[in-house]
């Protein structure tokens, strides 16, 4: 089934007699997935509103033919149009004028001159504005920099996170209050936020709500940090929609894995690399179920990618692995099977412990291992075009 995504686009109607303001509005929204409709006065505005049912109307107050106040009155008395939210734009920001506008049932108002960011922020509170991607964006990998904001009033926790994740190319910025967090987000919208639920006066939940209403942080993953025993707080965090929950004491491995997943980072380069003449697959020292699942997901695409690029050989390196278990064996079977399907020649590199453990299983006792990468390369080099039987299952 094919879905036409264009029909889902929000429509924003700008009604202003100034062509300049209409261009500014169009410019402000150009990075967001929405359609801009234009009218030069209230009469045109009403006609377009009736025909196109916009999701938001940006309405100037002072216009010829029919001004904004009259158009708004007509919108509010029309059963079909009265539900459309309206943001008024006015060049006259005096107290009386603002009070008058506030009383006639608008969702918000904006005084000219206005910054484009302010317009987008106000519109983003009314409609679910989504940034527009002109072309498929390159997936970010674990080797790309990212800005992480940690909102935590205990410096030791921030330090622990910074220390524990220092091997990642991430900049972890620690702040201790809601105000500092919002200031930081205004200047540098972060890629991910870690937020302690133990901030004073429940300000974490307040901060979460503010961030979710701000267009810049609306879709930013926000993790809740909570003490393991604070189950009430954890439930509340799940209810309001935090992206993930991390309990203290923090398991930094779990934190890193969840952060990678939330930021949709390509982690394949941890396990797969293209070396001169062959594809390398490496398993780490400890293969947790999460690691195995991650590697299994990358198997077929990475193998196919290598074959597509002209590679015919690969090395499966498990020499760092501490112990063999069923999960690892299943993954290796899957990898070998994929090699055969793609006629990839492969060699296994292990360590004494793993080789010994393999002898103990019926299915793995015939597996042949090389002692080093160099030996594996040399073995593969001696082989002909035929698929080797050296590691048959």
């Amino acid at each position: 089934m094919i879905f036409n995504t264009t029909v889902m686009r929000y429509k924003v109607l700008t009604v202003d007699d100034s062509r300049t303001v209409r261009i500014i509005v169009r410019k402000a929204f150009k990075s967001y997935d929405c359609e801009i409709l234009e009218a030069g006065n209230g009469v045109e505005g009403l006609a377009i509103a009736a025909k196109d049912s916009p999701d938001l109307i940006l309405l100037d107050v002072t216009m010829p033919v029919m001004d904004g106040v009259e158009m708004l009155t007509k919108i509010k008395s029309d059963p079909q149009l009265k539900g459309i939210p309206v943001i008024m734009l006015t060049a006259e920001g005096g107290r009386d004028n603002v009070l008058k506008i506030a009383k006639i049932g608008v969702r918000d108002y904006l005084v000219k001159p206005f910054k484009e960011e302010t317009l987008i922020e106000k519109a983003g509170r009314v409609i679910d504005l989504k940034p527009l991607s002109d072309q498929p964006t390159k997936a970010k990998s674990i080797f790309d920099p990212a800005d992480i904001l940690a909102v935590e009033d205990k410096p030791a926790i921030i330090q622990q996170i910074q220390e524990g994740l220092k091997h990642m190319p991430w900049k972890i910025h620690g702040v201790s209050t809601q105000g500092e967090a919002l200031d930081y987000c205004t200047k540098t919208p972060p890629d991910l936020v870690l937020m302690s639920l133990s901030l004073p006066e429940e300000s974490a939940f307040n901060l979460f709500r503010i961030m979710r209403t701000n267009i810049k942080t609306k879709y930013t993953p926000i993790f809740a940090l909570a003490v393991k025993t604070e189950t009430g707080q954890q439930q509340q965090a799940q209810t309001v929609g935090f992206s993930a929950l991390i309990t203290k004491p923090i398991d930094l491995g779990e934190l890193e894995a969840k952060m990678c997943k939330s930021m949709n980072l390509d982690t394949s380069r941890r396990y797969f690399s293209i070396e001169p003449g062959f594809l390398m697959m490496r398993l780490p020292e400890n293969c947790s179920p999460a690691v195995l699942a991650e590697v299994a997901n990358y198997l077929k695409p990475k193998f196919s990618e290598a074959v597509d690029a002209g590679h015919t050989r690969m090395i499966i390196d498990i020499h760092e692995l501490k112990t063999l278990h069923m999960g690892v064996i299943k993954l290796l079977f899957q990898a070998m099977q994929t090699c055969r399907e793609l006629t990839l020649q492969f060699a296994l590199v292990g360590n004494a412990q793993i080789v010994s453990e393999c002898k103990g299983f019926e299915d793995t006792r015939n597996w042949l291992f090389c002692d080093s990468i160099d030996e594996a390369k040399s073995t593969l080099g001696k082989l002909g075009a035929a698929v080797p039987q050296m590691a048959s299952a």
Partner: protein
Amino acid sequence: MSATAAINEQLLRENITRAINDVFSTMLGREPTFMGCTNILPDDGMSPPASGPASGNTTFVVGTVGFVGDINGLIYLYLDETLARHSTCHLLGMNEAELEQAGDEVINDAIGEITNMTVGSFKSGLCDAGYMCKLTIPSILRGSNFRIEPTTATTRYLYHYESAGHKVTADILIQTDE
């Protein structure tokens, strides 16, 4: 309120300077500096008329918006053509080539809107101070070596600003009770 007699130069200066700074910094990314004020006295028929901001060969784009109510008057906002073009490009996200193709009408619209916002902000300050008034629609003058002369009695001040080597002048004319 019969305001014209009571309004003083300080109120005009503070409001126009705030309005110009607000509009120029928000919409044009500029921070104009106040350079001084000139009081243009009514023509007595004896002295030579004072030269205006557009007295040389430089082409100026001048936006004008009036205000009518407890206080009546007009503000002319003078920008030299180069500044008007730069401002339009910044405001509309265009480059020089696009602006050239779009023509002077786009510049007139943009400077008209800048003037409208400036006088709107100035007028809001007057309203907050108790001088209720409404704005008229903006219009544009263009040219070099010209002078604007009121035909009725006015109190008139020129407020001079500078922004990155360009001069900006706000010419405020307030109708006085005769």
